C-alpha cells in the first residue's frame, strides 16, 4: 500500500476476466475504506454489474477506481467508460427490467440503487461513462 490515497487505479475490461478483476479491485478499495460488510457487498455487486455492462454493451472499456475524500467523508469512486454505441434513451436504459443485451435489465437501474452517487454520461455513437461513488458511513 503505497502512494497517495487518491491515486487512480485503471483496469482494462476487455474479457470476462476483467469483470472478475473489477470485483476484486472494488473489494480491495472498500476494505481499505473500512466499509461495513453490507456496504462492501453493495459496492462490489454494483462494480460487477457495471463492469459487465462495459464489456457487453460498450464492447469493452476501462474501470478507474480511486479512494476519494470530500467534506470529511471517505469513499470509493469507480468510473466505467467505453467507446461503444452509447445509450440513445437514457430514461429507458434506467428502467428495471429493460434490456438490450439479453440480460435481466438490472445492471444500470439496480446498481444505481446500490451506490450513493450515480452519474451517467453518454453520447450515442461516442460511448458511455458511468461514475459511481459510495461513502463510508
Amino acid at each position, binding site marked *: 500500500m503505497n502512494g497517495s490515497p487518491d491515486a487512480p487505479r485503471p483496469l482494462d475490461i476487455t474479457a*470476462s*476476466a476483467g*469483470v*472478475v478483476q473489477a*470485483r*476484486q479491485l472494488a*473489494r480491495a478499495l472498500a476494505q481499505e475504506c473500512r466499509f461495513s*460488510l*453490507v456496504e*462492501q*457487498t*453493495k459496492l*462490489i*455487486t454494483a462494480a*460487477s*454489474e457495471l463492469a*459487465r455492462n462495459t464489456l457487453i454493451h460498450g464492447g469493452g472499456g476501462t474501470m478507474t477506481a480511486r479512494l476519494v475524500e470530500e467534506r470529511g467523508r471517505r469513499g470509493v469512486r469507480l468510473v466505467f467508460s467505453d467507446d461503444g454505441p452509447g445509450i440513445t434513451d437514457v430514461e429507458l436504459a434506467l428502467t*428495471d*427490467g429493460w434490456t438490450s443485451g439479453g*440480460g*435481466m435489465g*438490472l*445492471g444500470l*437501474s*439496480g*446498481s444505481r*440503487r*446500490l451506490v450513493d452517487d450515480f452519474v451517467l454520461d453518454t453520447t450515442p455513437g461516442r460511448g458511455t461513462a458511468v461514475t459511481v461513488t459510495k461513502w463510508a458511513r
Partner: protein
Amino acid sequence: MSERVPVLQIGQVLLVSIQIDLDDQSVLALQDDLAAKVVESGAHGVVIDITALDIVDSFVGRMLATVASLSRLLDAQTVVVGMRPAVAITLVELGLSLGGVRTALTLEKGLQVLERAHVSSLGASGPAGAIPDTAAGR
C-alpha cells in the same frame, strides 16, 4: 481461463459448492453441467452451496433461477443454501428476489427440504402431493 466447479453426487442428490469467484463463462458452464448431470444421474435433488460467495450479482442470480427451473423440468428440486445476510440485502436492493428459488440456511436444512419434497412426491397417490413449502425463511 474458465474454472470448472465440481458436481458431487451423494445418493440421489447432486451437490455443488461454489468456492471461488467465477467468471461468467464458468457460471454458464456450471449451469450446463448441472442440467446434464441431473439427467445422467437421475438425481431428485440439487443443492447449490453459496456459503463462500461474498456477492451474488444478476448474472449468478439468473443462473440460480435457471437451474431451479430447468431441474424442475427434469424432475428434480433445487435448493440454494448458505446465502449470507449481506448478499440477501444486496440482491433485494438490486431488484432480484429470486422468487422461484428455494433456499435453506444450511446444507443440513437444504437436504431435509429435498428429502421431504421427495417423500411427498412418492406418496402423491394420497391427498395429491402438496409439497411442504418450508424451504424459504427457515
